[in-house]
Every structure is written in structure tokens, then in C-alpha cells.
């Protein structure tokens, strides 16, 4: 199966484009399967979507393991907060399938707004 033909690839492209429009300061968006294959990307910043998809898949799985270990419920977001930007990772479920949405931003955007936009993105994918 080509991941461009994945049954949720259209949903992924929709949300990647929507986030780019919705979030000022977004420089790249990547949507990936939970096991690290990229489904869609958007944004002006050059990233290797295949590599980033694999990395955030590991991050999300480690976040899930940490939440299980500490009993704090289902992971929603992970944030890699850096000097020149943020990587905000949202674990979503679309049609029963776990996906990962990654939002790369500069530091001008408030984290709460980014989290809110990612929550809306999950709703958008499930409504599509």
C-alpha cells in the first residue's frame, strides 16, 4: 500500500492544509500513522516528512508509555519546546485509527492557541 493511497490520506491532507491556514507562525505540518509513516505535509519549512513521521511516532509511543506508567490517562499532546520554536504533537483518533499530527511553529504563537487548533483539527478529520 502506498501511504498516499491510505484510506485516511485525504483527511490528513485536509487537516494539514487547514492548520497551515489557521495557525499564524506554523512553519510545517506533518500527519503520520502511529507506526511512523507520513500521510500528508504542508508548510513552507523544508522538513523530511518521512523522517519526522518516524521520530514523532517514537515520541508519541514514549509519551503513551510514560502516561501508562504514571496512570495519567490517555496522551493528547507532547510539546518539544525549543529556543527557536516548538514541535507540538497531537495524538488523534480518526475512524478508530490512531494518527499523529505534528505542528512546527516559531515562538510567536501562544502554546494554548496551537493546542486548540490541533484539537479542532481532530474534529475536522472526524467530520470529513
Amino acid at each position, binding site marked *: *500500500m502506498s501511504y498516499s493511497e*491510505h484510506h485516511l490520506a485525504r483527511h490528513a491532507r485536509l487537516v494539514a492544509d487547514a492548520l497551515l491556514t489557521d495557525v499564524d507562525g506554523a512553519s510545517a505540518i506533518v500527519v503520520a*500513522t*502511529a*507506526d*511512523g*509513516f507520513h500521510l500528508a505535509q504542508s508548510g513552507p519549512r523544508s522538513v523530511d516528512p*518521512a*523522517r519526522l513521521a*518516524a*521520530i514523532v*511516532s*517514537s*515520541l*508519541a*509511543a*514514549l509519551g*503513551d*508509555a510514560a502516561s501508562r*506508567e504514571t496512570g495519567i490517562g490517555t496522551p493528547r499532546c507532547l510539546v518539544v519546546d525549543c529556543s527557536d520554536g516548538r514541535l507540538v504533537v497531537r495524538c488523534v483518533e480518526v475512524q478508530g*485509527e*490512531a494518527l499523529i499530527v505534528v505542528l512546527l511553529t516559531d515562538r510567536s504563537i501562544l502554546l494554548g492557541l496551537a493546542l486548540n487548533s490541533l484539537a479542532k483539527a481532530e474534529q475536522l478529520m472526524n467530520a470529513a
Partner: protein
Amino acid sequence: MNAMVSHKIVFTGTPGAGKTTAIAALSDKPPVLTDVRNTDASLGKERTTVGLDFGEVDLGDGQSVRLLGTPGQLRFEFMWQIIATDALGLVILIDNSRPDPLADLATYLDAYEALLPSMNCAVGVGRTLECPLPTLDDFADALAARGWVFPVLAVDVRERDDVLMLVDTVLAQAETRI
């Protein structure tokens, strides 16, 4: 009171070779797993590790081993290096039922080439009863051709004693280096 000595041994190898199973077989406690639903039909399995596996076994005599498993797929190569940092040893698991097990071995030797001179290593070959070729000697020859001499053992990673033998082999090499 003597302090507990804790060693770190990394299990790597192809998807389906049994890294998660091996760690679960040996760990004293249920291991930490980071497996997710697999969407790659070519792997032929329901779930796959994308982060790491972690288990721990108390060997007695004040020694324990932390067992870390890598994801198998090449796209997770960045995790291979992270997980192997400061490890005492490396266990490469090979699934002999795959199309080219010797090429699989070469993939992991290449990936860990920079670390191998300072690591202790063992190769565990699974499913040798169903798939006897390549033989263990073939694997040893492939290692020797690259200048490595590591123990190559036939293993069933579901069997705790087999996994313990791999760990013991790595620890024995470490002893000889002291």
C-alpha cells in the same frame, strides 16, 4: 553494603525477530512497551515497536541487567543510536525465515559499526529449525569476513533460558575485557 551494578544490554534486529518477546521472556517485571498497530502489510504482524522496549532482570550477586529493545525498521535508525549509547553490549536477533538473513545481519552491523569496537556483541538466530539455512557457520563466516568474531547462537526467544544465554554471552565477553 555493596551497591547494585546495573548493566545495559540492547536487543536489536529485524522486525519480527522477537526483540519484544525476548525482553518479555527475561524481564522480572512486565516490560515497558511502545508498540502500536502496524500498518505495513509486508511485516505480517499486528503490532510493532516504534519507541523502545524496556525490561530488567536481577542476576543475583548484586548485578542486574537493563534490557532495551529497539524498533526494527530502518526508518527508526535514529532510535538505534540513542538506545545503544553507553550500552555494555548488543544482541542482534536474526529471523532465519526472512528472505535474506545474512543481508539483515549486515544491515545491523553497518548501523552499529562505530559502536561495535567498544561493545560486546552476540548474534541470536531464530527459527533455525524451520529454516536451517543459512547455518550458524554461515553467520560466523559473514562476521569474520568483516573482521568480527562474535558468538552466534540458535535461539527461541520465547524461552527465557535462551535469552538468558544471549545475555550471559555478552556479559562473559565483558568480563574478558576487564
